[in-house]
């Protein structure tokens, strides 16, 4: 357990510079985004109303009052979030391959640690999860700050205020915010549970490749398909038998069990590969 925490800390340390840079980009881009978007809207409002072509009511009818939800659609928000997502997805692979490639051979050290090798995998998965959740948290902490900036620039008559919950539940960055922070806590655990399962399955596929190399790529892809088929089996059966045999609550329980099974199999196979098959 202690070694696991040490390893998580170590894995975080290895990506910390890039991670902090990502957070920095998110914070700066979003804050600049709120300021720029708010000011653009104010310029528009001033332009339309000062030259007398529109009064306040006409302006609001044409352009609608500004909301945080609309600001969240801007590129200032979507690009850094997309960049972070891409970086973390890429890092799911890189977190393993960086130990093998390059002049140093850190994988020797990791495999020769006097600790269960599965800890290495669990630490890598945990590090990725902490970083994903960390970024989501940063977004949650940023939103009220951005709300204040928005309210400072745009006067009350020209805006509609939203609570953080409304912003998150709205279509902010094209609905992705809802996937990251669903309204229901149960849905939150489902989404991240599926995420966890996917990461473990991917890690297993990577370990297949690291154990059997070229042949391992085939094994890895086959394993991913296997995991997908197991997890989606109730739906696949439904497609073939036309109608939904199961009621939604039954399907939910089955999916939870299948998700746990797939995650369990992935961890077990990874454990086996790390102990018996992996090669430096």
């Amino acid at each position, binding site marked *: 357990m202690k070694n696991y925490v040490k390893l998580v800390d170590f894995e975080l340390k290895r990506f910390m510079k890039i991670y902090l840079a990502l957070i920095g980009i998110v914070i700066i881009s979003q804050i600049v985004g709120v300021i720029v978007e708010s000011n653009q809207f104010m310029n528009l409002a001033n332009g339309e109303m000062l030259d007398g072509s529109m009064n306040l009511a006409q302006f609001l009818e044409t352009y609608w009052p500004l909301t945080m939800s609309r600001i969240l659609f801007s590129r200032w928000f979507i690009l850094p979030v997309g960049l972070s997502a891409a970086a973390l997805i890429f890092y799911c692979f890189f977190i393993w391959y960086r130990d093998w490639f390059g002049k140093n051979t850190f994988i020797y050290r990791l495999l020769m640690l006097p600790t269960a090798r599965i800890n290495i995998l669990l630490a890598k998965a945990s590090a990725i999860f902490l970083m994903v959740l960390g970024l989501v948290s940063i977004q949650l902490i940023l939103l009220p700050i951005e709300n204040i900036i928005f309210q400072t620039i745009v006067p009350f008559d020209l805006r509609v205020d939203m609570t953080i919950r409304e912003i998150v*539940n709205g*279509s902010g960055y094209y609905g992705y915010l809802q996937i990251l922070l669903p309204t229901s806590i149960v849905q939150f655990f489902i989404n991240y549970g599926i995420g966890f399962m996917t990461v473990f399955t991917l890690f297993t596929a990577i370990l297949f490749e690291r154990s059997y190399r070229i042949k391992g790529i085939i094994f890895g892809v086959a394993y991913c398909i296997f995991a997908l088929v197991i997890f989606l089996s109730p739906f696949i059966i439904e497609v073939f038998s036309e*109608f939904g045999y199961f009621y939604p609550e039954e399907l939910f329980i089955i999916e939870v069990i299948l998700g746990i099974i797939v995650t369990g199999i992935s961890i077990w196979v990874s454990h086996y590969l790390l102990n018996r098959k992996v090669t430096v």
Partner: protein
Amino acid sequence: MRYWKVIVLAAIVILGIGTYYIQNAFASPDYPEFHLEKVSGDEGVVDGLIFMGSYIDNYKEFGEDVRITPEDTIYQSERSYFDNMTEGFQDSTIKRLQSDYRKFMRGKNESSSSFFEDDKRLIYADTFGKESDEGFKIEMLDKETNETTDFQVEIPENNINYLNVVDVQADEKDVFITTRNFYTHDPNKPETEEGYHVYRINIENGSLIDDEVIFENKTDHSDKGWTELVEVNNDTDIGKEDYFVFRLDHIKEVGEYDEYDDYETYYKTESSDFFAYHFGTNELKELKIPDEGLGADKTAYVHEGAVYFLNKTKSGFELIRYQMDNGELNTTEVPTTLDLYDGNIFIVFHDGKMYIPNSSLEGSTANLFVLDEKTGKLVYEGKMSADRELENVFLDLNELAFE
């Protein structure tokens, strides 16, 4: 600090995500509460009435399902995950059947037009085959013994491309399955493309007694227009109906096609013919309903041998009632002080009364009219009002339920 990275990151996660969900759990969202306000009439008729619909906030760019009970306004996000999951989005008939006959309803197609129910039986009919064109599978639940019988019936050699079950009826001996069949056709010549059939199946020996073509739509695209079949019968009502009602729309192209125009401005339904088929007599008759009296969408409601239409007038609206057996046409003027909105409007028949919710396209208001089914007299009118001023918010009511 040795493991500060783990600790700091975990702290941020707990602080950010943790507080967000704890807040969500304790503070309910600040959404408006709606309640029905009586304008006139007898308040007793709306006791236990539940409205279902969507709440859409255009400024804030989000929408949620909402359920308005006499006591409370419940938004989708306020309900538990499991409540949202099990309640699903099916119509209330299916919901009732699923809770009453859970075993029988397992794996059944979720469209209520495939069901028939009377005091003793619940019957389900659906198609089988690759293109659902080979025949029917029929399942019957005896409500007293709780026993299920099932059998399949094949449709002999045919030119059906695929077919939809649009209604199921039954008497003591037979099951009548009304279908809309789409035929395989030769694209080079105008010909019959679709038609309504009634398949009569003997319950005792499971044989197909009769395949009656009740109407066929011969489509001719040459004359800048075509005809289209539309089912009119009430498909959420799964009890006994004597008639199957449908209409034939005559659609014409008007003006030059412009991709920026709406579909409606390019195609226009010129006229509609209404037909009713009587299951007992096998008779098809055309209903003599004056076209000009009807609203633009020609929405008709069928209940107990009558077809109803709503029509907006200067002083309120009128209810047109067409009695199918004798062809009697009644128009009842319904004077109301409330506006009749252009938004969603429909009729729910319940307990000898017609409940007519009407949503506005322009704001968060909605009205409810309750008429006596026999006399067509207004017995209640009410207005849905919110507990606050709402701007650019829509309340779209689409279903009613009775507690």
